[in-house]
């Protein structure tokens, strides 16, 4: 080990760099859009109460920085389109002239209808409806649909809220004109908010239940990827030993092959386990330094040790297998690295398996990295105990043993000492 300190350091530094970079890059995509704040251009051609409510609502929201004037002058629709086209802003809304009047008219018609049905003689002034009016929403042309949809939904919510407010206001006016109700405007608003939607934790762990975020996904995922990348040095090491003859020497010593192979497995398993623990430590303590949330290790963090050992064993066995089935380094190394990338892609390292196409989800079970990530997620996302990780660990261990036994058989058949 001390013969190649720089190699050992690289084995730890490269995955560390990988998890930090990947967590930072994927931080925004992993965040709910509700957690982000966007610049929004607003052109108000209406100047009515509905427009004012929408503008104020957006300005006070946690999601938008509203810009409705440039150089002290209100933004025009033409300016708004120009700025979006240039890519200076991502979102713009134009409130057309007359939208408040149209909304008030529609509300009055509804109120009059209610009054008529309930026998109230009071009527609000109305005119004929001019058809549906739209508040225009514009996006920077390069915005992806995955960005547009939640933004449009959030803005629609504000518009609906403002429209409801106007309706409530008109209803309040009706109630003031009669003695049939004591409900004032504030009360009506409260009544309308009486039923809402609130997300609750899945079990009694309460606040300890976490949503997946960039750190919770990327730290274990890329740590596992890094562990499996040990396939490359192991395969290279085995082939070099075969080429320089030292493997032949071991093959000549009675009973040595088994112990030497076992020694390699124990050593590399240990290295990979240490590597995983260092990666987790980075998640726990270094991620906040980069402005990311700290890794949450679950309610049973000690379970991560047997999980890491099991993953490390399987990764090592895969390295032995790769080093055994190929004759030369030039065959083994490209296969080792590319197969790890492919297995990581199907195993949900890059993108969680849940959002992969169904066919790919079915394919995921062949990837040891899928079972590795599943075991880690049981601990750090679902607060799982030993019984919840055992199925994944059993499959991982079985894959590892299978690869080891296959390596021994192939090595004997092909006369290629491990």
């Amino acid at each position, binding site marked *: 080990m001390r013969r190649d300190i720089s190699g050992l350091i690289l084995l730890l530094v490269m995955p560390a760099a990988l998890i930090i970079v990947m967590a930072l890059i994927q931080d925004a995509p992993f965040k709910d859009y509700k957690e982000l704040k966007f610049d929004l251009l607003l052109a108000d051609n209406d100047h009515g109460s509905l427009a004012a409510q929408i503008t104020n609502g957006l300005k006070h929201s946690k999601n938008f920085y509203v810009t409705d004037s440039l150089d002290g002058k209100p933004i025009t629709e033409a300016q708004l389109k120009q700025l979006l086209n240039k890519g200076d802003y991502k979102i713009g809304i134009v409130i057309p002239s007359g939208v408040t009047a149209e909304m008030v008219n529609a509300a009055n018609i509804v109120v009059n209808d209610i009054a008529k049905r309930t026998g109230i003689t009071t009527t609000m002034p109305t005119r004929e409806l001019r058809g549906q009016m739209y508040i225009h929403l514009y996006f920077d042309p390069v915005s992806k649909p995955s960005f547009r949809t939640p933004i449009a939904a959030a803005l629609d919510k504000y518009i609906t809220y403002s429209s409801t407010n106007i309706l409530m206001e008109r209803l309040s006016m009706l109630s003031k004109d009669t003695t049939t109700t004591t409900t004032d405007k504030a009360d009506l608003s409260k009544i309308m908010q009486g039923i809402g939607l609130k997300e609750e934790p899945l079990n009694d762990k309460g606040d300890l239940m976490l949503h997946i975020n960039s750190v919770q996904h990327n730290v274990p995922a890329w740590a596992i990827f890094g562990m499996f990348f040990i396939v490359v040095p192991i395969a290279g090491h085995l082939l070099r030993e075969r080429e*320089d*003859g*030292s493997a032949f*020497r071991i093959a*000549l*010593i*009675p009973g040595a092959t088994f112990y030497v192979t076992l020694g390699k497995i124990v050593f590399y398993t240990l290295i990979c386990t240490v590597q995983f623990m260092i990666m987790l430590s980075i998640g726990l303590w270094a991620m906040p330094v980069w402005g990311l949330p700290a890794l949450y290790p679950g309610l049973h963090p000690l379970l991560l040790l047997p999980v890491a050992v099991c993953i490390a064993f399987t990764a090592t066995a895969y390295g032995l297998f790769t080093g055994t089935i190929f004759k030369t380094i030039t065959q083994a190394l490209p296969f080792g690295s590319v197969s790890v990338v492919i297995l990581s892609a199907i195993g949900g390292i890059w993108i969680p398996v849940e959002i992969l196409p169904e066919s790919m989800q079915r394919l995921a079970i062949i990837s040891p990295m899928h079972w590795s990530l599943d075991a880690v997620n049981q601990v750090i996302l679902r607060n799982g105990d030993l019984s919840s990780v055992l199925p994944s660990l059993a499959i991982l261990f079985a894959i590892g043993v299978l690869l080891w036994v296959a390596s021994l058989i192939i090595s004997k058949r092909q*006369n290629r000492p491990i």
Partner: protein
Amino acid sequence: MFAIEIKDIRKKYKGAEASALDGFSFLVKQQQIVGLLGPNGAGKTTTISILCGIIQPDSGAAFILGKDCMKQIQQIRYLIGMVPQQIALFGNLTAMENFTYIGRLYGLSTATINTRTRHLLERLGLDNQAHKRINAYSGGMKRRANIIASLLHEPEILILDEPTAGVDVQSRAMILDFLKEYRRQNKTILYTSHLMDEAEQICDEVAIIDEGRFVISGAPKELVKNTVNCKRLEDVFLHYTGRTVRDTTE
């Protein structure tokens, strides 16, 4: 009992046009240095690999000190010391680290390893270089270290595959002197070589193998004497194997 007994061994590698060994039979008496000589591709290395249990023959039998090479290979491996053509050592480790590791795998105690290593290092002129990495050794030093690694468990039979190929004159002389001395300890040595003068110099007996078949065997001087128009062992060799160049490919 013969040290080595080979009976009608046949071996054909997958995809090869001809058999590597085609009914090869051969006997090696105990406490002798025996040279197995043959042109490229004659079957020398295949014979040695079968004796060490590295490969299995298609048919025939081989025995070392009465033990079956196919059935009792683990016991046989304690009896033989194999010095392969390639330097079968860990290049990143020092010679001493290599010997300690190999000795431990043979189940030797640290004290035994140290005693034997010290003696062998001294005898083969590496005592001042024991703590240098094998990769830093010259070709001759590597060859000598390769021999030491095969002798740590004090085998009864030493099998060497071209042990002096590509080494300097001094290293070669040291290796040959050592082999003669080792034989004097009542050990048997089987070795292959392309160097006829070397075989003539140290072998009690030589056997010529060609195209996987036994050709002739005997004491070098006897062979020279009994073969027409031959003054040296090389003449005998060319007489029986011909002058056609044997190029081999894998």
